């Protein structure tokens, strides 16, 4: 029997205006609409779904604590494969991995991944620390602006050890904005210079406001099935060629080395090994950009450059449109949208690039894409390598 090959066959995200939903919706409606549209994109319906993967930050305490229970009920399905592992922003890259494993093992035929957030409409985000219980009783009382302070300390240490500068970090914000300027759906489309980043308020040294991602609403869904099934549906599949995941810490004091994303190193190594390709084969990358420093550390951890050389790697707008390393082509979390957990949106953009649906921002001959999610405070990492064939 021919090996079952897992593919992504449907994607959708919900429209936003200035980072907010275009109409007033609750977080379950958001996910239902994204699911409906992704299934329509796949040529499938909800009754075909037998795998459900979701997590989020909604409905806690309450029905969001066990999100697949709530969503299966809300959608009216009884899946035979379920996963709600919450590793923060990397969760959906891990979900693609888990769904691929389940599909290839025959544990489900059609997997639906959904995410939703109404954090901007609800004004529910602030910089307060996490509840001061268990491991957090050793961190929250000292008032680290959360999560930015953790990323700031990582940036500070990287600058100390390797001579990385605020200019290096600003290069990432500026290059990402240039991509956003090519994306009609992006929230921030005005011109941006390195001087503009420096002129924005300092939030947590050395990170400025424009080193930080947006805070927006958002909803997205992904449908996965087998290559054979996709072919029968007449849809162009995106293949899942390699994946990996890891996590190391939750508190900042326990991060093994602030200049090094151990989780991303493990995840990336696994993904490249499984895909059987080298870094040169990656045509376009979508790398979690909660903050500019997140991108720089991840590029090093995934091996696109050596440790300490991330600053040089992103210099001279190498990651901007027309640059040698097309990165975060939607405008990313920094300039397009960031709905609390960015992971699913990175995957959706990668699929659009591989399908050639990106209009002005389309990367020519994009055949292979790397997607990497980061969650917690540089805590978890999950990598997916996707391809057209």
């Amino acid at each position, binding site marked *: 029997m021919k090996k079952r090959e897992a593919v992504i066959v449907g994607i959708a995200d919900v429209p936003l205006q200035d980072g907010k939903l275009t109409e007033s919706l609750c977080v379950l409606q958001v996910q239902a609409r994204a699911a409906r549209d992704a299934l329509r994109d796949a040529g499938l319906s909800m009754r075909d779904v037998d795998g459900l993967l979701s997590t989020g930050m909604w409905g806690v305490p309450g029905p969001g604590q066990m999100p697949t229970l709530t969503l299966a009920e809300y959608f009216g399905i009884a899946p035979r494969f379920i996963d709600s592992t919450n590793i923060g922003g990397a969760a959906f890259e891990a979900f693609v991995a888990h769904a691929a494993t389940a599909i290839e093992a025959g544990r489900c035929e059609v997997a639906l991944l959904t995410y939703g957030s109404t954090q901007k409409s609800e004004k529910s985000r602030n910089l307060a620390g996490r509840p*001061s*219980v268990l491991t957090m*009783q050793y961190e929250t009382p000292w008032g*680290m*602006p959360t999560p930015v302070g953790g990323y700031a*300390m990582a940036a500070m240490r990287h600058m100390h050890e390797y001579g990385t500068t605020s200019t290096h970090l600003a290069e990432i914000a500026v290059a990402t904005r240039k991509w956003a300027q090519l994306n009609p759906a992006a929230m921030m489309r005005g011109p941006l210079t390195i001087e503009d980043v420096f002129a924005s308020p300092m939030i947590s040294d050395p990170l400025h406001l424009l080193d930080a991602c947006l805070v927006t609403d958002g909803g997205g869904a992904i449908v996965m099935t087998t290559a054979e099934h996709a072919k029968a549906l007449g849809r162009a599949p995106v293949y899942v060629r390699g994946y990996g995941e890891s996590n190391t810490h939750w508190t900042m*004091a326990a991060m093994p080395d602030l200049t090094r994303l151990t989780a991303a190193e493990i995840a990336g190594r696994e993904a490249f090994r499984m895909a059987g390709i080298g870094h040169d084969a990656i045509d376009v990358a979508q790398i979690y950009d909660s903050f500019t420093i997140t991108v720089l550390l991840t590029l090093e951890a995934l091996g696109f450059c050596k440790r300490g050389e991330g600053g040089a790697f992103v210099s001279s707008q190498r990651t901007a449109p027309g640059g040698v390393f097309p990165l975060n082509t939607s405008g990313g979390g920094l300039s397009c949208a960031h709905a609390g957990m960015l992971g699913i949106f990175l995957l959706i953009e990668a699929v659009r690039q591989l399908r050639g649906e990106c209009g002005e921002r389309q990367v020519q001959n994009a055949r292979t894409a790397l997607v990497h999610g980061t969650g917690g405070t540089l805590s978890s990492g999950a990598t997916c390598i996707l391809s057209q064939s």
Partner: protein
Amino acid sequence: MYEKPLPVLDPESQPYWDALKQHRLLLKHCRACQRSHHYPRELCPHCHSDDLEWKQAAGTGRIYSYTVARRPAGPAFKADTPYVVALVELDEGARLMTNIVTADVESVRIDQRVAVQFDDVTPDVTLPKFRPV
């Protein structure tokens, strides 16, 4: 009235916070691998041994990394801005989250030597903070 978040004590952390009330900073020390760790755990995070004991730390170390919070971690910290949040590596090797107590936040540097300063924030809770030495 102290309005900042306070630690919620549990059976594992009680001895740690009790010692701080007496202005003593404790670390868990592993008899098997001779390394210290923070926060206190049931198994050594380095070698996974359960042969652990409490030891009093010297209270000195260096700044591993830090940030100056220009925006507060919630309203309770607003009056303190700008303030320094740091990870201090104690001379025993364990790292902890703390504040650097200084009148000049711009003077703080990585690798700066620091010493513990006990801040009795409530009758029940003492927070270990650090000042440059």
